[in-house]
């Protein structure tokens, strides 16, 4: 006859008497510790806010550039924790916090439109088109603050020559990456996305126009437009489109995001110009991050010698 025996309970599974007797206090205590830990963590975030810059990989620079300014470079931490990237939130600190979820590898950039050789480049292929230079540029935001950044890249015209624009191509249209899954705050940006930008072909051919892969000796941090962006130092910052995925050569002036959002305030050209105010604030002065006083803004952000000829004969009040 089979007699079933109760499953033996191992002594290790028996709740110790002291814990059983004090089980209520134990639960309260556990709750208290959890609550304490949560409050502590919240406090810690307030007292020591996390510096969220992921470890970047170094980017070898083959040469320095004669285009570099010798002005003092803005600290890396300021450049990475105070900027606009509306896909990741509209506050200045938001991109540093929220851009970390952007996946930048693998990355492809499609170059097409009115070109002889339509081609999709991988990031690695793009980086190898020309030796990388370090260029220390002034960067002036339309909101009247400015920074000096050691960017890494090469002149955008290298890429244009590679794909060979057709004679009827007159403008270049750019498009940023946009994915609500990785950029959930994009829906509150208040501007149409994906972000699009554009240049006249002769502006894009100008050697100052930089196709940029890095800064401060490293690959671009996500919040600054990783893994590849444009840098156009004589134009307001918003023209320098980030996280590029598409470049198209076109016949007509392409739409640009801030112009679509508010065409009275943001023109297609958006050259830095101290004499033409933004309708709501003056552009005559700017605050360099780290400075106490504002400094006068320079025509074409100080690059007039190089680029003014692109706009000779144009009424810059009309084509602002």
């Amino acid at each position, binding site marked *: 006859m089979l007699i079933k025996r109760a499953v033996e309970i191992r002594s290790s599974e028996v709740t110790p008497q002291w814990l059983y007797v004090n089980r209520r206090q134990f639960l309260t205590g556990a709750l208290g510790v959890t609550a304490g830990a949560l409050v502590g963590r919240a406090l810690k975030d307030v007292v020591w806010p996390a510096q969220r810059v992921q470890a970047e990989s170094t980017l070898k620079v083959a040469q320095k550039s004669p285009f570099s300014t010798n002005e003092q470079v803005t600290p890396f931490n*300021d450049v990475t924790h105070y900027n606009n990237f509306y896909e990741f939130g509209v506050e*200045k600190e938001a991109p540093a916090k929220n851009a970390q979820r952007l996946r930048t590898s693998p990355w492809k950039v499609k170059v097409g439109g009115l070109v002889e050789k339509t081609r999709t480049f991988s990031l690695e292929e793009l980086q190898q088109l020309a030796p990388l230079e370090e260029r220390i540029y002034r960067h002036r935001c339309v909101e009247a*603050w400015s920074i000096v950044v050691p960017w890494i890249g090469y002149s955008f015209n290298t890429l244009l020559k590679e794909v060979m624009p057709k004679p009827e191509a007159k403008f270049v249209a750019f498009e940023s990456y946009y994915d609500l899954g990785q950029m959930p705050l994009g829906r509150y*940006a*208040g501007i149409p996305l994906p972000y699009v930008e554009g240049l006249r072909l002769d502006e894009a051919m100008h050697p100052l126009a930089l196709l940029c892969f890095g800064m401060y000796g490293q690959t671009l941090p996500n919040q600054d437009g990783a893994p590849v962006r444009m840098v156009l130092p004589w134009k307001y910052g918003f023209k320098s489109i980030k996280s590029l995925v598409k470049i198209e050569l076109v016949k007509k002036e392409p739409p640009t995001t801030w112009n679509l*959002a508010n065409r009275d305030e943001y023109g297609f050209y958006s050259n830095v110009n101290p004499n033409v105010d933004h309708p709501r604030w003056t552009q005559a002065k700017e605050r360099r991050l780290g400075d*106490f006083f504002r400094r006068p803004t320079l025509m074409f952000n100080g690059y007039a010698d190089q680029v003014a000829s692109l706009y000779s004969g144009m009424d810059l009040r009309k084509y602002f």
Partner: protein
Amino acid sequence: MRKVLRSKWIKLPVFLLCLGPVSELAWRALHHDLTANPIEFITHLTGDWTLRFVVITLAVTPARKLLHWPELIRFRRMLGLFAFFYGLLHFSTWIGVDKFFAWTEMLHDVRKRPFITAGFTGFVLMIPLALTSTAGWIRRLGGKRWLALHRLVYVTAAAGVVHYYWLVKSDVRKPLFYGALVALLFALRVGFWLASRRSRPAGGAIPSGITTAETA
């Protein structure tokens, strides 16, 4: 709760709580944590709190009536003065730090930039309200006139919202939120006024705020 609101010790903690935002500024300044653009950060923080205190002050009377907590009136002057305090900090940051006493530049801005005109108007209108906030001034002006003058706070609130709305580049959710709050509070006041008129058709309506206005 009403007992707590009536106690004479309650004002001190409320006062300290109202100093929270300026303490945060001091704390961050000591720890070099005012972001990469400290002047902008200070301007925005003090501006935000000015608008918040204006809204909180406006909410006192509706809260008194809806919650049946008449004691809340004890805090209204303090809250209103804190709105003025943060407004003054905001305004001084602009004058003294941002523009560094460049008067012509500022005058130009007040005339030419609508968002600055609106903010300036809102602030200037708070000055007579702060000055006449004492018991002596309530007596000197008389309840009705004092109340009429202090209705200017609605203009300040509206100007503050417009100032904020015209300032932002694209995301108008926050200014719209404050705008909705001010509109709601204004609608409540109109509602109370209509209700009191209906319930007392013959005699003149007794001004609601002044009868219990803080004199302690």
